[in-house]
């Protein structure tokens, strides 16, 4: 285990409190709603709500809406390359996503996916994003994907898509928390309200209990979603952090287990 990484992980909360280095905590938020063949109602509201919550917690937030393929890949590339000295890197995506052969892919608004090759050519590789973030020596990463809504491509009856499936593939990565709005391989609800069920509980948690350790924080989010959806949607998360991380440490600079 890398000693430097452990120390960096433990230092996260303290650094955040001191606010010494800017930007110590950075976030990239992408909301894709205007899909030509499968528009979504909530992602833009979702991403704005999350942006407001994170800004209030001191994150330096970059928000993008309705990104096309090139724009989406470039925004992810820039984020990975330019935030290597940050203490916390957070990526949030709301939109359509799918999985194929153990990897997860996020769909830009201009994605026309008719076969497996299109999946590789016309989407953003979420698994590679997690891999590349995980490879950064300094700091911790949080990747939140509310992207498991069912795309009509999966009900169109085509067999060309036999390896691609709805939902996302499990991924765990060192120094990284990965949170999906639903279990791997399952689909999430867009919800009846202005924001998705998952994002509503996520932002509520960010407002009410930002000092919880992220593992505990996401458990609470999960419990809220499960209760509201009557067990139809069960969020999933994986944490492989080497230290303790919370969205905003308590008064003593530490995460707080029971606020």
């Amino acid at each position: 285990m890398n000693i430097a990484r452990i120390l960096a992980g433990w230092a996260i909360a303290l650094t955040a409190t001191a606010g010494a280095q800017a930007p110590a905590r950075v976030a990239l938020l992408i909301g894709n709603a205007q899909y030509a063949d499968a528009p979504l109602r909530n992602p833009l509201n979702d991403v704005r709500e999350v942006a407001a919550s994170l800004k209030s917690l001191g994150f330096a937030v970059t928000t993008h809406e309705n990104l096309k393929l090139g724009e989406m890949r470039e925004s992810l590339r820039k984020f990975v390359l330019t935030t290597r000295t940050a203490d916390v890197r957070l990526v949030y995506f709301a939109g359509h996503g799918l999985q194929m052969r153990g990897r997860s892919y996020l769909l830009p608004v201009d994605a026309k996916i008719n076969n497996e090759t299109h999946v590789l050519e016309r989407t953003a590789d979420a698994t590679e994003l997690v891999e590349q973030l995980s490879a950064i020596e300094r700091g911790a990463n949080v990747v939140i994907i509310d992207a498991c809504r069912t795309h009509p491509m999966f009900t169109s009856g085509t067999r060309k898509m036999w390896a691609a499936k709805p939902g996302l593939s499990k991924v765990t990565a060192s120094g990284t928390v990965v949170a999906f709005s639903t279990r791997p391989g399952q689909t999430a609800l867009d919800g009846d309200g202005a924001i998705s069920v998952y994002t509503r509980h996520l932002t509520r948690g960010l407002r009410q209990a930002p000092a919880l350790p992220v593992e505990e924080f996401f458990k609470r989010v999960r419990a809220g979603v499960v209760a509201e959806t009557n067990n139809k949607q069960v969020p999933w998360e994986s944490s492989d952090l080497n230290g303790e991380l919370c969205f905003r440490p308590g008064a003593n600079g530490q995460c707080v287990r029971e606020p």
Partner: protein
Amino acid sequence: MNPQFDELSRKAAAGTLTAAEREWLDAHLREHPDKRAQLEWDAALSAKLEQKIAAMPALPGWERTERALQAEQAASETGRTARAVKPAVVRSPGILDRVSDWLASSLGFAINAQAMAVALVLVQAGVIGALAWQYERDYSEIRAGTQDQTPRGPLLRVSFREDVRESELRRALAGIGGEIVGGPGQIGVYLVRVKDGDLRAAAQRLRASGITELVEIVEAKR
């Protein structure tokens, strides 16, 4: 080998010799009596072929098949009519019948063989359907360390500027004795192994080249 003899021998077998050819052939056989064996062989072969050809039906393949099918159908209808009048022909029991008999003797009641076959097909369809459903619901777990498949360090993790030409990239790599061993993916990160020399010096040279956005050393132990 005498080409003329060979040709006339075949013509003799076919019975198409002219008088002059017959005369030449006779004279040749007198001079070479050993050739008579070949003449007889050609004649025998010709006779065999004629027999085979005569045995083949005159109708072309498809028409012949069609007629055969019609004849078979007619025979089958005749047979059905005959069975309606006469008792059914006794045949040896098939495997389903035997299994059915065995089950009947074991369970104490009769089971129709066709019903059993249908049930078997339904069970198989159910199993296949269940497996297919399970497969659709399945997902794969991977660790972000799929890079485990890529070479381990010590390496350089390098991202080149977007406007860099391939020739510049190659020159820079050649300058540090570097070899691309991984990447790039969508993020555009390469893994570069430096064959001989100081990895830190190589990283420094790459940074100084001005064509990179990122140069990091990946230690051997990650």
